């Protein structure tokens, strides 16, 4: 059996914003579920979302009883003077028996590898390690076992990275596609005073306003800045700065200066990703509902199992769950995306 040609059976890594979502993901066929605590230690620090230490422990038991894994994201950047919260999160993860923690900050990685040498470490996409050298640095310094790749590489480049690093690769296959290098974006903080890196929130809901006028035109605003406008009947999006519409001197009309509101869907590229040496396929969306988790996880479970059985990928229509009801293969298909 030639490993370079035959697809390996990948691990399906699925999001959970609440314990009910985690059980939904497990029941829908997730191999692994990732989640976060109810504070700034994770990059989806949204109101009403995430796990208490007790909920995390019970959820790990639920998953382990069914042979599945749980990962805890501790993937934000502690500001100096507040590091204790992140130390506590690592301790909670270890005592809950999670299968790995997902880290981004070098200080958190150094602390976890020093104090909890048995705890498996994954490198978060928030670490922005997009080259083999950057990944190797983290592997050699902190014993990182798996890297979550930024969504900026083509499948061919992923295969190339795979050959040059000593750890596993996890790649996003579905969900929100941020345009900016993760872990290095201060756009939200510039507008709202809430930092994506330190507070774990992109476009905090508290600063989001939707205004619909008499014609049915919907204006979305973040802080004092208008991010986009949708005519009556036009599909909308969440006011994320990198998906907003702006004007500039070389465009006659306002345009999506960074990216249109749409979501990543790589279901058609699954066989290629599996051949490129990707160990784990990641679905984005801890902030989304159980209904989303159930549909997306079930669809990808079916697709992956089909591919392993030698069938053409079964592509369930997931477009209704995507932002702006539009999909993209982003950077993965070709360099012209850049």
């Amino acid at each position, binding site marked *: 059996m030639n490993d370079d040609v035959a697809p390996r059976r990948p691990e399906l890594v699925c999001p959970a914003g609440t314990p*009910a979502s985690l059980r939904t993901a497990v029941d829908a066929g997730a191999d692994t579920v990732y989640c976060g605590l109810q504070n700034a230690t994770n990059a989806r620090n949204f109101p009403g979302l995430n796990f208490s230490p007790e909920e995390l422990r019970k959820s790990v038991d639920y998953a382990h009883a069914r042979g599945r894994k749980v990962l805890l994201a501790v993937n934000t950047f502690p500001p100096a003077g507040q590091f204790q919260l992140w130390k506590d999160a690592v301790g909670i993860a270890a005592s809950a028996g999670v299968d790995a923690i997902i880290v981004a900050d070098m200080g958190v990685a150094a602390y976890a590898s020093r104090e909890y040498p048995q705890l498996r470490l994954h490198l978060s996409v928030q670490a922005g390690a997009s080259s083999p050298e950057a990944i190797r640095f983290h592997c050699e310094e902190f014993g990182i076992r798996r890297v979550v790749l930024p969504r900026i590489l083509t499948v061919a480049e992923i295969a190339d990275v795979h050959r040059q690093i000593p750890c596993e690769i996890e790649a996003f296959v579905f969900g929100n596609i941020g345009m900016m290098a993760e872990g290095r974006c201060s756009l939200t903080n510039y507008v709202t005073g809430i930092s994506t890196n330190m507070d774990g929130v992109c476009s905090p809901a508290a600063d989001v306003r939707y*205004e619909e006028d008499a014609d049915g035109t919907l204006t979305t605003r973040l802080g004092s800045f208008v991010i986009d406008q949708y005519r009556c009947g036009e599909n909308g999006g969440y006011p994320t700065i990198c998906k907003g519409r702006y004007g500039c001197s070389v465009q006659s009309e306002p345009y999506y200066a960074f990216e249109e509101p749409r979501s990543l869907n790589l279901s058609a590229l699954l066989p290629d990703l599996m051949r490129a040496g990707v160990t784990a396929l990641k679905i984005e969306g801890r902030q989304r509902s159980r*209904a989303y988790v159930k549909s997306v996880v079930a669809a990808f479970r079916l697709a992956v199992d089909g591919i392993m059985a030698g069938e053409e990928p079964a592509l369930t229509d997931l477009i*209704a769950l995507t932002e702006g009801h539009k999909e993209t293969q982003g950077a993965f298909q070709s360099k012209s995306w850049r």
Partner: protein
Amino acid sequence: MFASPAASDRPWPLPLLRFLPLPLLQPILTLIGTQVAKTQPDVFLRLGPHALKSFIIDPTDLPFVLVLKPKPEAPSLSAWRRDNAPYSHARIAGTFLDLFDLIDGSLDGDALFFSRKLRVTGDTEAIVALRNALDDVDGGVVESITKAFGPLAPVATITVSHLRRLGGRGKNHE
């Protein structure tokens, strides 16, 4: 007398609810509030500071709105004529069935919002918190509520599935 003048123009009829006088609706709503408080106390924990806020749930195809105050010790759910509704921190509007499925966790709120079927005004953070809290109820809030009808629970369950069928929706959208 409670029917809105424009009611006959509305595309999706919910005849029973539309002509239901609000005083008759209120005991049922109170029961729902009490039941959720009793069986799903975690919902209020998840709401955190937002539990002290008030929400208008606005089914646009019905002549009334619901006002939800999810205070843990005394949650309340009440029906108001649209023009008389008291001040609230946030409003979420959509068709009765979309709101019903959203609250029950069987439809994705973001997907509804992206398709403009849901309108959100006021304190967006409170609405996100409410949505996330309700989403953590296993089996959905509606199942939890129908149990409140005691001996009438099977009737309530049948009514719910009837409502869903009217809207062309099964529980899991098969």
